[in-house]
């Protein structure tokens, strides 16, 4: 037979097709209304500028909505998700083709196109959908991982998808059997069903007719139901990815206009931006954010997934109703457990921004209610009174420089860089040694550097993360002014929190400086030959990526170069490294809080570090130094593991 004429009869065996068109309209209306309702809700949020740089945004959509790269980080889930999603794309194209041919007089599904695409490829992808659903069901009902959300809705969705596909195959198979379709072999699954259906022609026709209408009702039902379920993510996820934050994760927090804002911080859906509200509808309930959350992993209540889903459910109610404490996930106790490590944001396949919402709610608690943990209050009061968060310290900002010839910036003409020491580096005894090491290395390299000494004030990071945006702004503005006054162009700092503040947050206040983490600057000095380290020590070293350097600012390699250069021994990577690094537990104001002894983030990380068997744990942050030393001390048992900053390692190799 001539393949050029291959096709099938649309609506074979079906009469009163007009009923379908009649039913289509209410289904479509309900579908459209569902979207309209959500879009209206998003628009009640505050403004946000997320439509700049369209080419960059489109690239993100290709990478993550089409290629689904983040989803595929979990190979199992990525596979079945691609099966189902790509399968449905194909099925949708196929159905559209049918509609075009049926209603618009086209003749697309003919010949080779009909045989190879409409029959074969569609069958294959339909089968993939079923396999995908099967794999998903195995995970959901047999493995039952904790991170998933077990709702009836999820079950019904899987059932519906499976049924729709199954029905599709049955319809195809029975048609093939009843019409003795000559092109049956191009539809392998349909063909198989045809072969297996040992029914009489009239039975086939009845079954086919019945199933066709059932399939119709089911499909239209799913269509109508679609925007009221997590299936919405098919549309909201790509939209969410398009409007994602393009700046590094370290720049995730929003600015507040204190003169114009009605309420400081967020305690209602209306106070969120439209992008925040879109986030809520993009969520697919995959649970990866909670699965990587360090607080959650050590047994605390914090669950980014449940915050997002709780807020999503609250969208059905009054957008002005209070949200803090409206569900267990948004209870203040949980909000105060966040270290702002943004592992959640890194993990999210659809680019939801969980951490800024937590900080938004913290802002409300701190600035509107002044209700926040006492230990954090101490830190804030110390910041207000003394410009540093370490209440009770007897150290000054220049104690670390005793015995070294370090100059104040006003005494140095044309300094190459300003060494920004930071509060941790100046006032915590263990970290003073790191500052000394950095200063000595800079000196050896012949770098003309200076410090602000007593004129340094906290970068404001702890205040900002705790939620006191007002205090943060004051400190930031003072620091920007201070640096401008001294004509500072380049800043080197050993604290990633200060680094992040200067690089990503100070430009908002007119502070545009070239900022380097000390590991970056030192690595550069080595590559320029200004430092010539010789690794003599034979210790194995594992590097703990600071959240504020790595995940939030994409700096992973410079500290590793220093580790490589400094030690002859092996460099060992922890499983949770680079962008998957596990927080030390010190960020977000948490280093000031006394955690329950059995739920300490730093101890969890310490166990991981110890398990590598390395001799040295290398760090690049004063918070990590404190938390990891504490953690290792608490966990070490008989093993010795030294915690050292990369600068200290480099100095040892440079002696």
């Amino acid at each position, binding site marked *: 037979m001539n393949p050029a004429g291959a096709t099938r009869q649309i609506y074979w065996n079906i009469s009163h097709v007009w009923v379908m068109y009649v039913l289509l309209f209410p289904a479509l209306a309900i579908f459209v209304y569902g979207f309209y309702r959500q879009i209206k809700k998003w628009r009640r949020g505050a403004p946000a500028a997320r439509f700049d740089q369209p080419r960059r945004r489109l690239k993100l959509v290709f990478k993550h909505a089409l290629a689904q790269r983040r989803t595929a980080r979990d190979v199992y889930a990525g596979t079945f998700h691609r099966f189902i999603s790509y399968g449905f794309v194909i099925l949708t194209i196929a159905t559209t083709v049918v509609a075009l041919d049926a209603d618009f007089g086209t003749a697309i599904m003919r010949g080779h196109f009909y045989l190879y695409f409409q029959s074969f490829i569609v069958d294959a992808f339909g089968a993939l959908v079923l396999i995908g659903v099967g794999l998903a069901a195995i995970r959901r009902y047999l493995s039952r991982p904790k991170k998933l959300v077990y709702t009836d809705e999820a079950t019904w969705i899987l059932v519906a998808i499976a049924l729709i596909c199954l029905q599709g195959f049955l319809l195809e198979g029975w048609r093939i059997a009843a019409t003795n379709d000559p092109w049956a072999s191009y539809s392998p699954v349909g063909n198989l069903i045809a072969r297996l259906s040992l029914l009489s022609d009239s039975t086939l026709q009845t079954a086919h007719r019945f199933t066709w209408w059932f399939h119709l009702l089911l499909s239209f039902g799913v269509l109508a139901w679609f925007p009221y379920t997590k299936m919405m993510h098919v549309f909201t996820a790509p939209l969410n990815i398009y409007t994602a934050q393009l700046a590094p994760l370290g720049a995730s927090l929003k600015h507040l206009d*204190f003169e114009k804002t009605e309420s*400081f911080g967020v305690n209602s859906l209306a106070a969120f931006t439209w992008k925040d509200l879109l986030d809520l509808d993009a969520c697919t309930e995959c649970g990866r954010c909670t699965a990587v959350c360090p607080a959650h992993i050590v047994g605390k209540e914090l669950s980014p997934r449940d915050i997002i889903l709780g807020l999503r459910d609250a969208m059905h109610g009054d957008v002005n109703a209070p949200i803090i404490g409206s569900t267990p996930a948004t209870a203040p106790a949980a909000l105060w457990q966040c270290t702002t490590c943004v592992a959640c944001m890194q993990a999210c396949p659809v680019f939801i921004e969980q951490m800024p919402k937590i900080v938004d709610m913290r802002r409300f608690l701190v*600035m*509107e*209610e*002044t209700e926040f943990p006492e230990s954090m*209050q101490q830190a*804030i*009061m110390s910041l207000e*009174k*003394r*410009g540093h968060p370490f*209440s*009770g*310290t*007897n*150290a*000054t900002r220049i*104690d670390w420089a005793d015995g070294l010839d370090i100059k104040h910036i006003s005494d140095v003409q044309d300094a190459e860089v300003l060494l920004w020491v930071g509060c941790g580096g100046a006032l915590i005894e263990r970290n003073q040694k790191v500052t000394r090491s950095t200063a000595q290395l800079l000196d050896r390299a012949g770098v003309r550097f200076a410090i602000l000494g*007593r004129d340094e004030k906290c970068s404001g990071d702890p205040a900002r993360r705790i939620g*006191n945006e*007002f205090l943060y702004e004051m400190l930031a503005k003072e620091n920007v002014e201070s640096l401008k006054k001294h004509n500072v162009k380049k800043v080197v700092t050993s604290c990633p929190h200060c680094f992040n503040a200067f690089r990503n947050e100070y430009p908002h206040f007119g502070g545009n400086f070239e900022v380097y983490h000390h590991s970056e600057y030192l690595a550069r000095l080595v590559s320029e030959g200004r430092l010539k380290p010789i690794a003599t020590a034979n210790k194995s070293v594992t590097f703990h990526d600071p959240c504020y350097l790595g995940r939030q600012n994409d700096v992973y390699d410079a500290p590793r170069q220093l580790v490589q250069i400094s030690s002859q021994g092996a460099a060992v990577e922890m499983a949770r490294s680079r962008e998957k690094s596990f927080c030390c537990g010190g960020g977000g104001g948490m280093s000031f809080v006394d955690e329950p002894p059995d739920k300490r983030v730093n101890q969890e990380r310490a166990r991981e570090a110890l398990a590598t068997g390395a001799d040295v744990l290398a760090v690049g942050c004063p918070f990590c130094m404190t938390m990891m030393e504490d953690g290792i001390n608490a966990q070490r048992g008989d093993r010795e593991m030294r915690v050292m900053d990369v600068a200290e390692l480099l100095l040892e190799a440079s002696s």
Partner: protein
Amino acid sequence: MKILVCLKQILDPEIPARDFRVDAAKGEAERGNANLVTNIFCENALETALQFRERFGDAKITVLSFGAASAEDSLRKALAMKADAAALVINDKNSNPDPLTVAQVLATAIRKLGTFDLVMVGREAGDWGAGQTAGLLAEELSMACVSFVDRIEAMSGGLRMKRQTDSGWEVLEAQTPLVVSITNDEHNVPRIPKVRDVMTSYHQPITQWTLADLGYEIEADKYYQLVDLSIPEKESRCEFVTGDTLDERVESLARRITEVTSAL
């Protein structure tokens, strides 16, 4: 009920010892890099006043400070904590007036501000710690005085208060007008002002007077005079107990302790 709370702004008492220096000629600590803060007992007093108003209603709280122009910051913070009015008597003369001068200036300013039922001061200042303001102020204003109060309640005909003593506490009943000095307690830890209130406080007016406005002239050294101010030399090296195990170290500690106590 009209309440007046006196506030003193002082050098941050928690400056690191290394940074603490005195200017013997001027007879005061050097400002250096230290910040200025409100004396904690004055904040306890303000907090007590605020809680009194919350519980017993209808009280107007005025805060008053006698100090340098920078004391305005302390008064703004008090306004942010929701005091109703603030006044500052600027001291442009010497920085460490004696307690009688302070009491007289405050009394003059208080009379100019109106009639008050209750005057509250901190028990002493974190810098000079003379602890005399309450008593001398009471004498100047011809009011009774109760010291070391940590809790005040309204009762019919006056006030009931609890005050700390070295062996416990006492409850007193008093009639207004009254001066009290306030000491710290777990209940009068000063509240953190809300950001919005901090912002509003910058727009609230503060009455400012010079000593000339009050018609007061300071007579130096009429009550007492500072003849010397110095930082005592104190170097002692701590002997950290040694031992390889915790057991050995605690044994060492126990021995050292017994050495001292058995000689008693």
